[in-house]
């Protein structure tokens, strides 16, 4: 199965892997000045993985502090910086860039293009994003320096006004937060524009919109959603900086400004943002589940419609984060309904994955293990989301560990799981070598166990009334044992993460040589050599169905007969 030679355009000229010439400095220079979508994709992914470790290390510090009541591992001030930096890092320096990394690397290959629409804008966007990350972390050594953790932001990733006003947050932490995210936000905007233009204008011959791989479809939806999602945050952060530096009054409650306006603006960004994060995870599942079930995706048009539907509905549900701010009962009811409606298109996606697996011959290689766990966990996470959308119950659960559990179930149980799936799946394409399956299995099972030990338990802490954002708690609240369990789970996840890193490095040097198409897959990227040459395809490919490589491998029974 592995390495059957496919007589496909890209394979005409094979660049041998690991043959990049030149001294170390020359190669480094090559990475810095590159405008190649594949190299930029790799840069994005590596950048995000580093920050995943950093954000994870912050999470571990948080968990050490909360392991026992009244702990003194972190001071109150440091704890607040850590949970703020943890959330901000994970959302803006891990979630967004890694998904853009995959889009960058894969979308041109999947749609048979030689590069992105605007290669130089692409490089510029990456370096803006990187600058944003550096700026955010520079805050630790800015201000009074490393001792006392400098001026790292400590206002939560939602940075509610008026806590962010100069009177309540003197120092520069909040400025770093706003500025870093504005900078990386422009990078994000650039990449989103690029992806939209690439997908709309660069598809190879024959690839009509309804023949695009679902991955490309979802990236199109995500990028379009990003255009109208990240920009409101940028606007609100400009207002915040105007308040802080020019004496403006947007959120100055002493001068008639409104704290609620910030909350609205933040969630007008914040809610669609979580779908920006999760849709690429869906995109990954849409590629992996069919290939490992050996079946075409079930209900392709429904999948497209559902994704577009989710994106649209997600623009109108933001105030479900605000059930406790004292909106009128009618507004509360409205946002309950709109929020619950998201469950319908999302359900369609889950059911279609299920139907794709149904009647297949499922091969449980590591990528599929992760994707299967993803579907289970996303189901649960979605259902806890429905629980939170029941406004009266949310009056209890809001800002409790139940919410923390809900969103880690999505952010870790769905997104991080699928990021791992994607890396195991496309690593052979990118490096030319397979990742170790043996380490992969260890990685998967440990991460799965750690995940459930940590985040299943958190739901109960929420029921028992434990609020979030607290650096310590009383010993007599009945939360001790559960917190200990949560922390132990976090460390199991940490071990799994280390195995993952080890696997990445080890396989680069010792992995089995992969060949072009190790998984016997169907989309165009597998028609190119591994790794693909600079120009991707020697001649522009043409496609006739959604699974061009299936058509090629099954000339007697091609897809285009049915579509």
């Amino acid at each position: 199965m592995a390495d059957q030679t496919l007589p496909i355009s890209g394979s005409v000229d094979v660049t041998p892997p690991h043959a990049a010439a030149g001294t170390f400095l020359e190669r480094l220079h090559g990475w810095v000045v590159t405008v190649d979508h594949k190299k930029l994709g790799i840069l994005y992914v590596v950048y995000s993985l580093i920050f995943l470790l950093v954000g994870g290390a912050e999470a571990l510090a948080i968990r050490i502090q909360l392991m026992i009541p009244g702990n003194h591992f972190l001071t109150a001030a440091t704890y607040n910086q850590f949970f703020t930096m943890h959330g901000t890092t994970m959302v803006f320096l891990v979630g967004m860039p890694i998904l853009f990394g995959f889009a960058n690397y894969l979308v041109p290959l999947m749609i048979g293009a030689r590069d992105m629409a605007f290669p130089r804008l692409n490089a510029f966007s990456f370096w803006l994003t990187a600058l944003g990350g550096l700026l955010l972390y520079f805050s630790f050594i800015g201000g009074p320096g490393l001792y006392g953790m400098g001026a790292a932001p400590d206002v939560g990733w939602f940075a509610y006004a008026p806590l962010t006003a100069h009177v309540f947050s003197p120092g520069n932490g909040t400025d770093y937060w706003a500025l870093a995210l504005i900078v990386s936000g422009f990078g994000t905007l650039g990449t989103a524009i690029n992806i939209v233009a690439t997908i709309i204008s660069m598809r190879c011959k024959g690839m009509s919109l309804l023949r695009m791989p679902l991955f490309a479809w979802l990236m199109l939806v995500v990028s379009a959603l990003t255009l109208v999602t990240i920009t409101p945050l940028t606007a609100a952060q400009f207002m915040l900086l105007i308040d802080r530096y020019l004496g403006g009054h947007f959120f100055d409650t002493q001068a008639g400004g409104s704290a609620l306006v910030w909350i609205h603006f933040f969630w007008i960004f914040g809610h669609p943002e979580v779908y920006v994060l999760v849709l690429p995870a869906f995109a990954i599942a849409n590629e992996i589940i069919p290939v490992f079930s050996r079946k075409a995706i079930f209900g392709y048009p429904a999948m497209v419609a559902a994704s577009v539907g989710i994106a649209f509905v997600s623009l109108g549900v933001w105030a479900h984060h605000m059930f406790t701010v004292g909106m009128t009962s009618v507004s509360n009811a409205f946002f309950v309904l709109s929020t619950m409606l998201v469950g319908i298109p999302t359900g369609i996606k889950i059911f279609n994955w299920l139907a794709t697996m149904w009647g297949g011959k499922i091969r449980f290689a590591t990528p599929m293990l992760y994707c299967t766990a993803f579907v289970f966990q996303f189901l649960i996470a979605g259902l806890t989301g429905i629980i939170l959308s029941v406004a009266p119950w949310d009056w209890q659960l809001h800002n409790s560990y139940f919410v923390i559990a809900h969103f880690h179930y999505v952010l870790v149980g769905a997104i991080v799981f699928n990021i791992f799936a994607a890396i195991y799946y496309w690593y052979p394409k990118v490096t030319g070598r397979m990742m170790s399956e043996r380490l992969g299995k260890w990685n998967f099972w440990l991460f799965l166990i750690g995940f459930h030990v940590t985040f299943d338990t958190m739901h109960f802490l929420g029921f028992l009334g434990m609020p979030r954002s607290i650096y310590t708690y009383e010993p007599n609240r009945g939360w001790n044992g559960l917190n200990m369990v949560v922390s132990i789970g976090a460390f199991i996840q940490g071990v799994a993460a280390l195995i993952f890193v080890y696997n990445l490095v080890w396989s680069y040097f010792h992995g089995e040589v992969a060949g072009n198409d190790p998984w016997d897959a169907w989309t165009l990227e597998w028609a190119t050599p591994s790794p693909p040459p600079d120009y991707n395809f020697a001649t522009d490919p043409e496609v006739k169905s959604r699974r061009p490589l299936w058509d090629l491998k099954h000339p007697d029974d091609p897809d285009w007969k049915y579509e």
Partner: protein
Amino acid sequence: MSAIPTVPELQDQPWHLPSRGRIGMLSLIIGESAIFTIFVVAYVFYIGKSLSGPTPGQVLEVPIFNTICLLSSSITIWLAERRIERNEIKAFGLWWGVTIALGVVFLVGTGLEWYKLIYHDGLTISTNLFGTTFYSLVGLHATHVVIGLAMLLLVLVFTLMGRVTEHHAERIQVLALYWHFVDAVWVVVFTVVYIVGR
């Protein structure tokens, strides 16, 4: 050599996709519209909520002349676009220059308005909510005018150097799209600030 099933019917069908420049610019405009929407919403929400004066009614004058200049620049740039398509470079340069001139007049007008507001009426960005929202919204728009003018100027310089031909029509039209957007936003800003909010 291409072994991806070459499909006979496909080969004679032309394969047309929209230009990436236009799609890119449209995407940028959508993103920018979201930024403006937030600022406009903030402006509207805070109308009449300032705790102290001055109020818009006391100090704002409707900038009719300015508005006429900016909006007509949309027409002149459209004329320029038509000329470059037909490779009439001189006429293109002329209309392009007029567009820039109108844009500059608009900026100067805004500058004079702000001068009056700051030095005669004592309204700064920190005076009250009106000042904050007014300077932010109008300033955001003015920033876009400045960026637009800078890019228009670049094209003018290339034109004067004789480097612009009809081959650049597409790119120039993409740039013009941005200028049209800046003008369209002014219509919204004008309505909100000088009509609704006054």
